[in-house]
């Protein structure tokens, strides 16, 4: 008996250290396929856009384009950075109703560029740099997600004020580009003189109002950023993302995702009364790998059965329509190569649904762009 004690202890330690993952080991192996290495496989991908002819991706400070065919085919991405005259770095791209914008610069100052034609074949043609009316430096694009949870209804340009006595002046303006955007069609948000010390990170609309997530604040404005007001609620952590869904039955409501703070993980909250009251719809604040959840983005794919939630270092998860039990990396177990790749522990920078609704795109930090087709399997671009 005395001799068997070490063996029992050793087996107990081994068993205690076992972590099976979300999928059975050999069941997962059965569906695993070779992940092809693509052009973007090592890039940090920040954003994605499309028009009637092409896809556009900002990744690794470059602009990549490819023809608008199925993302599951073997078409390759072309480095089109040099097509933006005067810009050496491309920070972001976005599209609003077929209009494509790029945020590009030389490393210190940036400009917004608009694609002048969507019917190009050899290289995209960009207009001259758009100047913000306040003279600020544009630093980020924030797509305003429509009430279907995935389309982009308008585009916000987050602007950084010029230096004041050597100090950054804050992000005190947000510019709105609408679907008919031109350089003259900008509206700016400067809510009652309140300086936005942190940039707006996410925006969504319910068709009437626009909701803006900015640090611990959730702003609600009119259709054109008019009459901004803060929704008074304490979610416990800073907000990172907001999504408004209507038109479905089980998923309607206003969602916010929060960041991790200290030892507290983030959550996804739901409000069904336009922000008056909120309920957490995530039961866990840690991923299956015991990492604190920190949400980065929310999206409702076209099949409208689950909301996808991207995280900072825990991949993405799917929130079920009827039972919000899941945390990232536990509801993705049978989606092809997701579990076997490093996606479950990666940073999801954005989620994007193609206009035809057939593909969900997932941008990552240093792991390129991934696409999920209707068969739910993930492939790397």
């Amino acid at each position, binding site marked *: 008996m005395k001799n068997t004690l070490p063996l029992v202890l050793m087996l107990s330690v081994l068993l205690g250290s076992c972590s099976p993952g979300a999928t059975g080991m050999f069941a997962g*192996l059965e569906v695993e396929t070779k992940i092809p290495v693509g052009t973007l496989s090592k890039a940090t991908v920040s954003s994605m856009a499309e028009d009637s002819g092409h896809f556009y991706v900002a990744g690794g400070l470059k602009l990549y384009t490819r023809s608008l065919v199925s993302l599951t085919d073997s078409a390759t991405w072309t480095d089109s950075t040099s097509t933006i005259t005067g810009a050496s770095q491309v920070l972001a791209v976005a599209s609003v109703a077929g209009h494509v914008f790029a945020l590009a610069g030389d490393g210190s100052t940036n400009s917004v560029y608009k694609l002048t034609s969507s019917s190009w074949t050899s290289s995209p043609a960009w207009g001259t740099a758009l100047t913000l009316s306040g003279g600020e430096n544009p630093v980020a694009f924030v797509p305003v997600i429509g009430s279907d949870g995935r389309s982009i209804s308008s585009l916000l340009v987050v602007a950084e004020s010029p230096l004041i006595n050597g100090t950054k002046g804050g992000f005190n303006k947000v510019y709105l580009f609408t679907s008919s955007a031109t350089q003259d069609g900008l509206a700016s948000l400067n809510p009652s003189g309140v300086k936005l010390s942190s940039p707006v990170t996410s925006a969504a609309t319910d068709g009437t109002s626009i909701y803006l997530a900015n640090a611990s604040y959730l702003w609600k404005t009119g259709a054109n950023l008019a009459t901004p007001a803060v929704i008074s609620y304490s979610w416990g952590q800073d907000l990172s993302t907001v999504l408004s869904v209507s038109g479905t039955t089980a998923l309607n409501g206003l969602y916010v995702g929060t960041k991790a703070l200290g030892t507290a993980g983030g959550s996804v909250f739901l409000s069904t009364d336009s922000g008056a009251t909120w309920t957490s719809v995530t039961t866990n604040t840690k991923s299956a790998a015991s990492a604190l959840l920190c949400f980065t983005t929310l999206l409702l794919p076209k099949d409208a059965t689950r909301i996808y939630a991207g995280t900072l270092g825990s991949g993405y998860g799917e929130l079920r329509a009827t039972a919000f039990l899941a945390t990232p990396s536990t509801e993705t177990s049978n989606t092809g190569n997701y579990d076997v790749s490093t996606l479950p522990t990666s940073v999801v920078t954005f989620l994007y649904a193609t206009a035809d609704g057939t593909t969900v795109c997932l941008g990552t930090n240093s792991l390129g762009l991934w696409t999920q087709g209707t068969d739910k399997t993930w492939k790397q671009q």
Partner: protein
Amino acid sequence: MKRALIVLATLALSFPALAAQDQVLTFDHRVVGDRALTIEMGPVLPLFTQSFLGTLASTNLTPGGSLGLDVDFYLNDLFRLGGGIRGMAAFGPNGHTLFVVPLMFRTTWELKSFPWSFPVGISTGVALASYNSHAWMDPFVVPSAGVLWNMSPSWSFGLTASEWLLADLYFGPSPATTDSRFVHLFDLSLAAVYHF
């Protein structure tokens, strides 16, 4: 002359006796308390997986290799009990390595025809399986058969074929019970046995 005939007759009569003694006292004869240390190494061929519903599927693994060390104790000339540890590695489609480390208890019967032995055995225990940063413990059964050439009283060499049957079991909710699999692997190993 007479003396020479007597010597030849004595030698002639003693040859059958010496031959009989060779047949009985071969050096592969083991007695209780004898021990055997076996080192095995060879390729492993992943065969297939099987769900609870009986559905067969490819393991999606490359051929791999195994290395093992066993210690057995003879209870009589033909039967031994022992235990051992194995290590097996193979690769998935994306280059991740599957490691399986069985800790086994085994029984072996040795059928003998000097200088050959034909060990037939069965092993059981738990295997620590690891793949893509996940780990789990699976019970297993390994029937085996082999052939050994007894080169000397201390050393035997040969070949062992084994069928590894791992039970990769889950009880839900994550991983789901339906993710349970029976895993079949075929191991063909060169074996060196040291008797002491």
